[in-house]
């Protein structure tokens, strides 16, 4: 009796359980499987062009060349700054010193001398003639 109980006399078609699983999993077919999403008109025609453009701009060669440009620019800027740092700064200091001295002398003269006295201390060629400003015909 026990043997009879243990033996299952019922059979199923070959591959039934594999199919059954598929059928069970797809039994929610009452819900539309139709794609509810849409795209703008002619989207896929334009998409191809856009992708190809994007790929060109982001390709390693263009990246590399743009990187080279950036590195070149940074290197040039650094070189210019270095040059300015080496040469320009002392010159600026010189100009500033000279300017300060001139300002001091000028203010000293302006305070203590009138214009006639100042003119008398200058060389003839240092005195600008008002006629020099008039352009000749």
């Amino acid at each position: 009796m026990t043997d009879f109980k243990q033996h299952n006399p019922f059979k199923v078609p070959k591959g039934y359980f594999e199919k059954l699983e598929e059928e069970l999993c797809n039994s929610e077919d009452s819900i539309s499987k139709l794609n509810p999403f849409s795209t703008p008109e002619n989207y896929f025609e334009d998409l191809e062009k856009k992708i190809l453009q994007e790929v060109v701009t982001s390709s390693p060669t263009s990246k590399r060349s743009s990187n080279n440009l950036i590195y070149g620019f940074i290197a040039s800027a650094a070189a210019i700054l270095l040059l300015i740092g080496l040469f320009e700064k002392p010159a600026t200091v010189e100009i500033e010193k000279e300017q300060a001295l001139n300002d001091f002398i000028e203010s000293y003269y302006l305070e203590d001398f009138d214009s006639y006295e100042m003119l008398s201390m200058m060389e003839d060629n240092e005195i600008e003639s008002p006629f020099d400003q008039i352009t000749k015909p």
Partner: protein
Amino acid sequence: MLKQQSIFISALRDPLTKDEAFKKLVSEYKERLYWHIRKLVLDHDDAHDVVQNTFIKIHLNIDKFRENSSLYTWMYRIATNESLNFINSKAAKMGLQNTEWIEAKADGLMADSYFDGDEAALKLQKMVARLPEKHRIVFNMKYFDNMTYEAISEVLDTSVGALKASYHHAVKKIKTELND
């Protein structure tokens, strides 16, 4: 088939034929990859960004493709990863979990001019959005894209058994919610 693929991949790698071959690749796969991405990110503009990034990645990494799977599977994997990275970054920027961000997207579908599903389709999308991320991906690939477990297994690098379990849980959860 494999021989043909190998020839095509060689063309994609050869600097002389790369551009022409890539054009063919885009023409052949753009729609399939777009729809896969769209079902994951839901929004058209987001899908557009991701599909472009996907093709850029494909173009840049074709030399790294080891040909131990089909080209389409490899591209599908890149598209899936790009979609998930996109969701991760968008969600992180808003201080949300990925599922929260997707749920918010699904809630806004009715107002989306590029969604023309009926109420049932909307309800299904909202329920799918509430699934855990892995279940959601498996459900999309199996239910909407009709992919076999073997193909999904290759794309997601997960065993067929684990995929069946994921799909089963997803279907069960959706059914329960539908009955409520």
